[in-house]
């Protein structure tokens, strides 16, 4: 089982890598950072982050559609924690 701390670290690392791929850097990235363009990331970048996280965590909560509003990086971590706690892996059927 992946801990919340490990998951948080993975998500923050993937966000940083995505920002770096765009040729920029982030001075401050915390759970309170907002998921909007303040990090310099567009919607396609967030789609890429979800795809990379799927490879690293084996889960993709967005496959089931989004039921809650995501505003901060902390919300994103909560979403993945909740998905992993459901024990749903990519490719498994979801009822």
């Amino acid at each position: 089982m992946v801990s919340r701390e490990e998951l948080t670290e993975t998500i923050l690392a993937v966000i940083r890598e995505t920002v770096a791929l765009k040729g920029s850097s982030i001075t401050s990235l915390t759970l309170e950072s907002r998921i909007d363009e303040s990090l310099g990331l567009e919607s396609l970048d967030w789609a890429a982050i979800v795809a990379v996280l799927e490879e690293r965590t084996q889960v993709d909560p967005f496959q089931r559609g989004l039921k809650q509003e995501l505003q901060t990086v902390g919300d994103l971590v909560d979403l993945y924690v909740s998905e992993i706690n459901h024990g749903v892996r990519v490719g498994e059927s979801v009822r």
Partner: protein
Amino acid sequence: MIGRHLTEGFARHRDRIALIHGHDQFTYGDIGELANGLVDAWSALSGQRVAVSIAAPASFVAAIAALDLLRSHAFLVGARRHEELQNLQDAFAWDRTIRDQDVQMVSPVPLNSLNSSSDDSGLVTILTSGTTGRPKAIHHSWKRLADSVRRDARYTGTRWLIGYPLTLYAGTQVLLHAMLNWATLVIPVSLDPGEVCRTLKDKGVTHASGTPTFWRQLVFFGSRDVLQGSKLEQITLGGEAATQELLDQLRLGFPQARIVHIYASTELGRLFSVTDGKEGFPAQFLKESPEEGVDLKVVDGELMVRGRTQMISCDGQRPPAEQPSVWTATGDLVEVCADRVLFKGRRNDVVNVGGRKVSPLKVESALRGLPGVVDVRVYAKKSSVTGHLVAADVVLAPGFSEETLGAELRRAATQALESYEIPRLVRVVPKLEISQALKVVRSEQVQ
């Protein structure tokens, strides 16, 4: 056809070298006499459907010549694992499989006893190089395949290096070109650029054929000195779109060579060639037939062809192009830019990002010019958020690091591409995923 040709020209050409593979070389006499021995040994295969699963090139050529003389129907399946062969046999129901050992146990027989009076031609089935699912079986006759080969006395004694497997359509074309012109077919033991370079130099190769991927690897990883000192008179590209940057590099690296880009497919055969060193083909080809009996047009951005075909049938179906009035979709997306028609990629390779279509070729072309980028493969990666994302695998030259790539890539991409076309997922890989036919694989969701 191939069998009759080899046996009839035997007296004049028996001492000429037909084939070089690594350290081995075989004369036309060696191959003709082995084929003759096989005709005697395999008389029971006459008229049968026979799978040719042979790895050794000389054995392969002798076997297809013998099967042609026996009027058998040869299925060029190549050396494969037992299970894979079994699956193909279930699908295509051939009568017998011949392997390397079936040729090795037969002794050559002097050629003066051979009966080659018939004008008939054996059938040959080539499997498409499809990277996913079951390959398609395309049926040809040796005679029709040989009809598109230009025969010219100046080719006699030239040396043709083949950058394709012998069992695929492009491979059979190079094989027939060499054999029908009494030239020497040179088969490197591997398609590793170092090995190809050594073979070019050591074997005095004059003509070489391969996919743009084959040539790109050779230009980047081959020894510059060897390439510049080569005796290449002709470079032939086929199977993929040749980009301007590659054509320019070949022109620079081989200033003395004629560069020919052939447009052909297993199903449609050879349609036309371009030799002016520019990517795509002249828009004039849409108005005037590029070659006798071949017409081209563009419908909804896709290249359509009409005209002769070498194929007899495909998986038992008569080919639509058999009727001269029928247009066949090629699956190649093109764009007419002034006096040129440019390839934009395969219809199936287009990446759909939230409803906007991205051409992998366009993105690859934008990234290839970056410092340190040897090659790049752009493909669709499924996304639960946008449908698909543009993903890229990049091969870096020695001395370049992944760290510097991201920013460089982004900067170049931003200048040349729309935001939705820029690869959002980028991996640095040691080499690109390449199909058996040495083409870049762009199938979706490659992990």
